[in-house]
């Protein structure tokens, strides 16, 4: 019996002296998929190849249909004498453009995107929870999934606002408003936090400026400290470097909606003014 099998193997994969490699034979037994019998596996051809082919065909059909139905825009020849209003970036960057309402360009256009990219890159290195690898699970990784979903939601909400709710002069337009008519410039005047403090507390210019620095530093300081004290296990598991990275990125992300909130609720323009940059 064994001899017969060997001869078939020999016939199927003839040895070739000129080659340095070859498929030797097919054997029955466990595979490198640990402790699993080959019964749990299926041949790629045709099983997977079919799925790929079908999804590729569906994608082609949908793409063709959309292209026949709806055409890529082409406006007037580029010229610097007329400026479109509103001037909108492609939709996938509108979240960033929307941030320009609340932050200076160096933050909205450069530093925050850089933080997003760095944040994404380090995810596998700061999420040390071994559970939930290879399957959907919320209960086993609540913090990770919630934080990620929050960031994603923030990104997409800003995009939706930018695409569908911003009209002339980057003003807020509801779908039922007349989008051809300019809105009166908003009546509220924005005020820096340091001025607000001066007015409310009656303190001097220098003192209130330092107070805003302390407030901003305090936001991070308190944010770093609270979990450090209340969730010792969280800190111990992550260790010093990871913990600080996680908290810095987390607090920076939360700072974005916080500043938006301060702007919308209290008309604050900058929370912190330095001779070099403003936040």
């Amino acid at each position, binding site marked *: 019996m064994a001899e017969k099998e060997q001869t078939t193997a020999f016939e199927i994969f003839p040895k070739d002296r000129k080659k340095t490699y070859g*498929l030797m034979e*097919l054997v029955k037994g466990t*595979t490198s*998929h640990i402790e*699993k019998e*080959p019964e*749990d*596996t299926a*041949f*790629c*051809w045709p099983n*997977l190849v079919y*799925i*790929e082919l079908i*999804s*590729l065909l569906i994608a*082609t059909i949908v*793409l063709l249909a*959309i*292209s*026949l139905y*709806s055409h*890529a825009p*082409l*406006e007037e*020849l580029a010229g610097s004498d*007329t*400026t*479109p209003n509103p*001037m909108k*970036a*492609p*939709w*996938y*960057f509108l979240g*960033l453009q929307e941030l320009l309402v609340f932050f200076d*360009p*160096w933050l*909205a*256009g*450069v530093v925050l995107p850089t933080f997003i*990219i760095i944040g*994404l*890159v380090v*995810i*596998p*290195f700061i*999420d040390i929870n*071994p559970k*939930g*690898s*290879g*399957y*959907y*699970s919320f209960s086993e990784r609540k913090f990770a*999934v919630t934080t*990620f979903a929050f960031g*994603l939601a923030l990104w997409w909400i800003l995009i939706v606002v930018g695409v569908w709710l911003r009209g002339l002069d980057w003003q807020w337009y509801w779908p039922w408003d007349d989008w051809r008519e300019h809105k009166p410039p908003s009546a509220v005047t924005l005020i820096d936090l340091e001025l607000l403090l001066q007015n409310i507390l009656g303190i001097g210019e220098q003192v209130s400026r330092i107070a805003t620095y302390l407030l901003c530093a305090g936001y991070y300081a308190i944010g770093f400290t609270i979990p450090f004290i209340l969730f010792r296990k969280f800190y111990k598991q992550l260790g010093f470097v990871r913990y600080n990275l996680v908290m810095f990125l987390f607090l920076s992300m939360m700072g974005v909606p916080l500043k938006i909130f301060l702007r919308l609720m209290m008309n604050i323009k900058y929370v912190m003014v330095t001779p*070099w*940059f403003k936040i």
Partner: protein
Amino acid sequence: MKKSFLDRLSDRLTELVTESQIWKAIFRHGFPDTDVNRSLVVFTNVFLHLHPVKVRKGALKVRFAWCAGGLTFFFFLVLTFTGLFLMFYYVPDTRRAYNDIKDLQTVIFFGNLTRDMHRWAAHAMVFFVWLHMMRVFLTGSYKPPREFNWVVGVLLLVMTLVLSWTGYLLPWDQLALWAITVGSKMAEATPLIGVAGPFAKELGITPSNDIRFMLLGGTIVGQSALLRFYVIHCIALPLVAAIFMTIHFWRIRKDGFSGPL
């Protein structure tokens, strides 16, 4: 049961084709309807060899991966193909770029369709790369040993966005000019290396030596900017992205797919 005439005919034809010298010269194996040939079809074909010969049954579930990574790659291929066609007609010269696009829309056979497909596939690729990232996150597929492939993925995400953005300038219409103007305004604001950014004055950064100047090849979005964006969009980035996709796929094969057992 005895085989019907048609079955016997198709068997005979299959045999005729797959036993011929030409077929064997190209494929080196028989029709893939036996286990051996199904292994060989994947094993001996450079494209199919991206797959393992056998996959776990769980990995076949569309519910798990949504085909999102595969479709991202497919849209990349569509973009390469339609982009090649567009390149035959498009010249990155500010005096004629816009008219070349108009020609594509109006006089060139299938020009408009190709342009539309290029545009929609670009949107689709951006959307699907997000979807794919979301899937990979939600299934925790970036956990060891796949950490680095996630990093490669993030680089691919950035490249996809930059590819889309550089393509935006090429039609040289109002939309293009002003979208890139907004973008380059942001570059100008980069801390340390942008003329309008924090600490620029202290470092002696001027409009003609900052990051925006490097990006645009000048101080305005003009001919040098168009040429730069064209070269980056059509040659540099597709090449780099293809290399990174190769690494991405290679690592999926080496680490194994994370799907359910």
